[in-house]
């Protein structure tokens, strides 16, 4: 098992493509996405059962190395600042296979 950084990002589904592009550019080896997340934060309640898609969140999980982490955070922070969202970093072990 190998130590990795576990990055969780929640942001607007409409911004998903852009965030994933940023992750790719930051060089992460992969990511997992769960659409249709709902939530509450500084911008109030965002729940997904809408005709429009502007109140829908997506949840992104990516496991990356310590070096990539800095790039990921630097890339994602301005987007979160502009459109809202959340980013958490924690430690994990990657099971090699």
């Amino acid at each position, binding site marked *: 098992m190998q130590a990795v950084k576990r990055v969780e990002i929640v942001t607007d589904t409409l911004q998903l493509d852009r965030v994933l592009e940023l992750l790719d550019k930051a060089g992460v080896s992969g990511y997992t996405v769960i659409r249709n997340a709902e939530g509450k934060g500084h*911008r109030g309640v965002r729940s997904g059962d809408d005709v*429009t898609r502007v109140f829908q969140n997506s949840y992104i999980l990516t496991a990356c190395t310590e070096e990539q982490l800095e790039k990921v955070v630097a890339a994602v922070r301005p987007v979160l600042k502009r*459109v809202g969202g959340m980013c958490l970093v924690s430690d994990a072990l990657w099971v090699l296979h």
Partner: protein
Amino acid sequence: MDLSFALSNFLSPPILFFFLGLLAVLVRSDLEIPQPIPKFLSLYLMLAIGFKGGVELGQSTPGGQVLLTLGAAIVMAAVVPVYCFFILRRRLNVYNAAAIAATYGSVSAVTFVTATAFLDQSGIPYGGYMVAAMALMESPAIVVAVILARLALSKPGPDGTAPTLETGWSHLLRDAFFNSSVFLILGSLLVGVITGDRGQTALHPFTNALFQGMLCFFLLDMGIVAARRLKNLRTSGGFLLGFAILIPLFNALLGIGLSRLLGLGTGDALLLTTLCASASYIAVPAAMRLALPEANPGLSLPLALAVTFPLNITLGLPLYLALIQRFGS
């Protein structure tokens, strides 16, 4: 207003199902139509209205007046956001003013569809080309509003900052002109024009016979969604509430005048008027969220969805019709 028209609209199944949806939220029933069913219903409505319009269009010989009407519709959709923007700027920041201006400059396909159902029930004919007018009126307001925001932001605001718009023009134009609603309506219209009578025979049970039922189902959901957004209105304040009631009426009057100038028949005039009066709550909020993420969709959506939309489909339709019949061609 002719009361019997108003009443017959109020007591039509689609409008009653809309009220049923409102009521469900008011009495806090757990009734809901889970996604993507409403999405499916709205795709169906756009495909069906587009196809029906296309078949009808293919059978008529569109003269110069049709082109003139389409042109006038596009101009209206580009002009409305301009004065809306300057009205809204008196109270709102650039981003929110632009987003709401785009919303009211653009149109609501479901309001249009409800208007066609209203005409069908009243036995008043209308032209298939009005479907094209609707599709063409969706996008201009988005582009105009972003240009207005860009101009306003290029001179430093009261806070001294002049933030730039991030998304490029190519993205914006694509989001505006190829958004799913415009694309599906115009595409289905084209299929209707091309396949004509043969297509009509094959698809009639799907696109025509089911139409009223699917509309009822969808308006039931719209009632639920609109009622849920009602509580967001508390934060809007009287200014925005007044805007959401008066601007559609004003736009409707412009639409009636324009229809008269163009010499449109009653049905086409009602549709053009309804388009002018309607506000977009699907395509525009999503496009604005991408182009101007600083705008708060929690402001524009409740206005369009919980005030202007119900107003238009309940009182608006019979009122506009009465005015057209009195002052129209």
